[in-house]
């Protein structure tokens, strides 16, 4: 069964304190791995798509990496506005076209 596990469930950082979020996945053939940011009361906002092991993508203070079993979202020198829930999702290469399987998310709080 395709599955996504995110850790930690919650993370509290001081402003400027860099850290990483983990997304472990089990899927029968990976079409793509997606990272989204979700603010309270809003829908998920797209951040990155990764397609193959070794791939990396960056956007401002965020950097996403991918291996054959997991992905990391590295946050460098975070600011309070980075506080949100970060969701990881995988799309299988077989089975249902397009279906994203999500983890439960990591709730990030950045204190000034």
């Amino acid at each position, binding site marked *: 069964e395709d599955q996504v596990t995110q850790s930690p469930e919650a993370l509290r950082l001081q402003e400027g304190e860099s850290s990483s979020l983990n997304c472990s996945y089990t899927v029968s053939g990976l079409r793509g791995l997606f990272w989204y940011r979700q603010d309270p009361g809003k829908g998920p906002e*797209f951040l990155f*798509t990764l397609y193959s092991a070794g791939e990396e993508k960056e956007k401002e203070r965020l950097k996403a990496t991918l291996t054959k079993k997991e992905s990391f979202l590295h946050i460098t020198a975070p600011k309070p506005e980075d506080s949100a829930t970060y969701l990881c*999702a995988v*799309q299988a290469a077989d089975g*249902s*076209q*397009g279906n994203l399987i*999500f*983890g*439960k998310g990591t709730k990030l709080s950045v204190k000034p």
Partner: protein
Amino acid sequence: EAGVAQSPRYKIIEKRQSVAFWCNPISGHATLYWYQQILGQGPKLLIQFQNNGVVDDSQLPKDRFSAERLKGVDSTLKIQPAKLEDSAVYLCASSRGQSGTQYFGPGTRLLVL
């Protein structure tokens, strides 16, 4: 480019009542998805449309949930009758193709009393 639009944003109903949600996808996006997000969980796919045809509704509780996508653009998701466990956020997403990046709307927050 306008994003995915959803209405209403909030809805409170009593159990056994019916409710309907509306979604307008990003212009030109052929694929439309409805997800259910229960508090503290990630979104779970309910149904996927390609134009006006259903691609995947394997996780849709068909005894109470129904959805349609008229003319391959707007979509409506209906629950009849609602149960307490249907309390959740209902998210609509769209993408250009079946494996493209999915963009989400703001969601409809449903509370069933």
